[in-house]
């Protein structure tokens, strides 16, 4: 039996008595695209925040591969290979596109304060290597035209792509995407879907994604997990979930025509 990429067991999270997650469990297999869906306030973003370490669940465990990560701070989880994007764009707004993506290379370089300040050969070699890697990611996501622009001046869809680029630059094993297609037009959506699929196929990155666009979720996911009021109400392949009466009642029912 191979280890799961991610194992969530019996997660409880509440904010001052208001519970966001009540006993959610699921497994994510290595290399799959795993979608979390559910109505607003279902606890989807809370779940992602627990996985990346921004929230501490009151109860339950999270294991990344064989490693328990429940008590680890976010930067330690990043070092293990967990990267993410945010629902509301969370870029370093005063930096250029390239510099933003370079921050994604942070955990692959060792350069310290003094060697950087004195520009020692080791620092310069490392910087060059990181920049080469960033150029690959820039080319992969078609960001060449805006690479030196300050990120705050770019269109929304482009900023979303920069955020994905920054996450990819860290060469994650597990990529968490919080509504990667939100607010995009259909052309931008297609680009994003292609980028996600390629990342998953070419680099074998496991993807856990929150998304509201049901068409895309059903198209590209291997597994879909449905949350409602902090509980898991369904889990399975897209077709299983689509036909689940709980899901139709809680969620899809409203969207069906």
């Amino acid at each position, binding site marked *: 039996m191979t280890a799961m990429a991610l194992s969530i067991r019996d997660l409880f999270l509440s904010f001052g008595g208001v519970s966001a997650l009540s006993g959610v469990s699921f497994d994510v297999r290595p290399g799959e695209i795993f979608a979390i869906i559910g109505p607003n306030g279902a606890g989807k973003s809370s779940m992602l925040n627990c996985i990346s370490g921004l929230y501490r669940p009151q109860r339950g465990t999270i294991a990344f591969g064989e490693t328990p990560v429940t008590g680890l701070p976010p930067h330690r989880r990043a*070092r293990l290979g967990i*990267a993410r994007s945010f629902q509301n764009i969370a870029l370093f707004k005063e930096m250029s596109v390239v510099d933003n993506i370079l921050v994604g290379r942070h955990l692959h370089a060792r350069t*310290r304060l003094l060697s950087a300040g004195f520009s020692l050969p080791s620092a310069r070699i490392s910087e060059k290597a990181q920049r080469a890697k960033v150029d690959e990611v820039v080319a992969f996501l078609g960001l060449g035209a805006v690479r030196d622009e300050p990120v705050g001046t770019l269109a929304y869809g482009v900023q979303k792509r920069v955020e994905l680029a920054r996450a990819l630059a860290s060469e994650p094993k597990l990529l968490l995407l919080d509504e990667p297609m939100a607010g995009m037009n259909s052309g931008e959506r297609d680009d994003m879907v292609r980028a996600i699929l390629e990342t998953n196929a070419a680099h074998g990155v496991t993807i856990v994604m929150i998304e509201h666009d049901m068409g895309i979720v059903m198209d590209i996911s291997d597994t879909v997990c449905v949350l409602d009021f902090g509980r898991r109400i369904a889990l399975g392949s897209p077709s299983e979930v689509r036909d689940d009466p709980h899901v139709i009642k809680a969620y899809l029912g409203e969207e069906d025509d």
Partner: protein
Amino acid sequence: MRRVASGVTLAALVLLPFFGSNYALDVANRCGIAVIGVLGLNILTGFTGLISLGNAAFMAIGGFSAAFLITKAGVNGFAAIPAAGAIAALLGMIVGVPSLRLKGLYLAMATLAAHFIVEFTVVKWESVTGGVSGMSVPAPALFGVVLDNDRKLFGLVLLLALAALLFARNLFRARPGRALIAVRDHETAAAVMGIDVFRAKISAFGLSAFFVGVAGALAAIQSRIISPESYPLSLAIDALSMVIIGGMGSVAGSVLGAVGLTLLPEGLRAATNALSGQWPDLISKLSILKELVFSILIIVFLIFEPHGLAALWRRAVRKRHATTQQQPEGGGK
């Protein structure tokens, strides 16, 4: 073009001790020391986004450490300067610990508390600091070279200021510097990209305090005598003004702010002297006038150009560039 301009500036600075007046060299030293100190504060406040009112305290730590090391521990004056910086860095990292939890105004208050703790310690710890009467600081000497006046000291100040500038420039083009900016721009995003936010903040405090401590040591050596009154809170406010007016998060801005606001009172002094015939009591109001002009400048810059002189400079350069490139097409005017 830029290379020529910076070459000429550097040459003028190197030649300054050979033809500058004593007054010019005093001002030049104060400018250089301000550059180092303001760069230090900018690393913390401009680049890492941590507001500090503790700058005067770290100047004091640098100054009194240097004075103690030279006079009471028998350390050579040249070695005492980096040592003073190191002591300031160590204490800076301790002062930085609350920054894990405190932000903005609350952090400003915590660093303000640090200022008063240092001030109190300097007054009371007489055996080390000389208490209220202060200490005299002997000139650094090595192989018969004694830096006992502004003319001789200037070379050292210039060298250290240039080293500080180069260090900062390199730092913010590389991984650790980017980590500091990332923490400033989006702490959560920085953390999920693998940056240890606490460590980044502590190193910003340490590095900042090192620069400021070196500036404090140099200032002590320049003035030759220091007392608790040499480091009032207004010194920290002045440094913050220089960072804001020069340009937060800009190495060039630190130079523009430090030099500009060190020269400004000198300009005001010259102006009031010139006008003293008509308004004799103007000279006595010089220090108030200085505070007034500083305050108005801060407000004006915060409203109209939060990125400071550095942004104005960049825009001017770009404009020039644009017009020189247009000329061949547009023909002669």
